[in-house]
């Protein structure tokens, strides 16, 4: 059963219908062998929205956003990102789209064998044309300044703390100034204070870049502060969606349990 908890959202919904979604997912299906992970997921992501995706561990949240940049091939369904159908793109077009979609990995995924500077240079190497006229060094410094880690430029990832790694990964994601940013658990494994710093950073970046984000999180505080809208991924579908206020008042057992469970953690 699909539940639509969008009573309060009727007005904004009619407004949104006029907008073209940046990301549109219809009936997305994905299985790994006999393990059915996504069983018909739908999503619209509109410009300047921050949408949070909630779901239990192993429910397929990471798989979902990996489908958006074709790190995972889908079995069935439609994925449109910036108007292009992701499963049908040629490699070159795909790479073009990927520069417009930032991806922050669950474990930061910094390149171990490179310094922070080289980590930030890496996305620039294929996209020099895009950043025409802009000095590489200046872009790197700017990105580092926006996450407050200019002094770390010559360090190796192994020399950084978890929170610093996350921030450098964020800087690396932002350096191409993407329109859409996908965050995979940006605050997982961090203490509450550092988490909060990262959340504030994301909000600030959001404003500066005028980006649209899809954020996966377990952290209810994070979800509450960041989201305009939340989607619960349960049983492989978008089980429920609505604002934090609406969803937290929901009578549905699964949604309720979910809030309780997450809040306890």
């Amino acid at each position, binding site marked *: 059963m699909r539940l639509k908890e969008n009573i309060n959202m009727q007005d904004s919904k009619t407004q949104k219908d006029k907008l073209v979604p940046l990301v549109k997912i219809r009936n997305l299906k994905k299985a790994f062998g006999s393990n059915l992970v996504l069983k018909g997921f739908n999503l619209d992501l509109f410009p300047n929205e921050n949408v949070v995706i909630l779901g239990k561990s192993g429910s397929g949240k990471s798989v979902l956003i*990996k489908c958006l*940049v074709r*790190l995972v091939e889908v079995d069935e369904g439609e994925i449109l990102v910036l108007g292009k159908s992701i499963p049908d793109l040629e490699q070159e077009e795909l*790479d*073009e789209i*990927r*520069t417009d*979609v930032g*991806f922050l*990995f*669950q*474990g930061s*995924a*910094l*390149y*171990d*064998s490179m310094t922070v500077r080289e980590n930030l240079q*890496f*996305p620039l*190497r*294929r*996209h020099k044309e895009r950043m025409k006229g802009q000095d590489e060094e200046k872009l790197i410094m700017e990105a580092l300044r926006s996450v407050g880690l200019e002094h770390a430029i010559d360090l190796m990832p192994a020399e950084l703390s978890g929170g610093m790694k996350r921030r450098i990964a964020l800087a*690396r994601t932002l350096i*191409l100034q993407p329109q859409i940013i996908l965050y995979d658990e940006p605050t997982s494994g961090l203490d509450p204070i550092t988490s909060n710093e990262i959340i504030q950073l994301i909000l600030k970046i959001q404003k500066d870049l005028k980006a649209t984000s899809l954020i996966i999180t377990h952290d209810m505080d994070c979800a509450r502060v960041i989201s305009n809208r939340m989607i619960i991924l349960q049983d492989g579908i978008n089980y429920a969606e609505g604002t934090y206020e609406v969803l937290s008042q929901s009578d549905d057992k699964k949604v309720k349990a979910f809030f309780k469970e997450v809040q306890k953690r």
Partner: protein
Amino acid sequence: METIAKSIKNYLEETGSISQFAFRFFQQAVRPPFEFKELLRQCYLIGYNSLFLVIATGFIMGLVLTLQVRPTMIEFGAVSYMPQMVGISIVREIGPVITALICAGKVGSSIGAELGSMKVTEQIDAMEVSGTNPFKYLVVTRIMASTLMLPLLVIAADAIGLFGSFLIESIKGDVSMTLYFNIVFETLTFGDLLPATIKSFFFGFAIGLVGCYKGYHSKKGTEGVGKAANSAVVLASLLLFVIDFLAVLVADIFYEI
């Protein structure tokens, strides 16, 4: 019975997917853009990291071979043929094989572990989404580098091995360096050098290919990384002997040894 059938099936499947991997390598290797800088860096790393080990083993190999063979040759009254005998065996067989085995251990495992941990920590995915082709950047450069560097390392091992052998000869017998190496180079023909060099390229290719394949397809988790490194060494070593055997067969046809 069933387990045997299963392991044969697994074996065939693996062979298929390694072949596919190799095919993808050739496909990507000829297509621009080329990653020259990374290729040079890998050449340097692979060559530099194994050079000391290769030289040390090459030297000892020369010493041991000479010490062990010498008494027999004296018995047969053929001690003056020592340079020929040692030269041919080192250049044709022992040099390439020992060097390749050492590199399978050193280079193969390090490539397997490095790519494996990059895979597991999603660094390869991160490259992919940043629009860089990780196969080209990581795999093509490493396979090329090991293919190019192995013959050079073999030459180094051969040279130092021959030098080691000369040292023993000059201590135990009475031969000058010029004379010794003159005899060695006179004995060695094109038919000795060419197959050995070609063979070395294939050895290097096999080591790079297997290391990259195992790393690139490593399973999730730290255990996966260890397994990738370990099985890279095992499979590469096995493959080296198969290639060696085939190379000798082919050389035999061409040169009627």
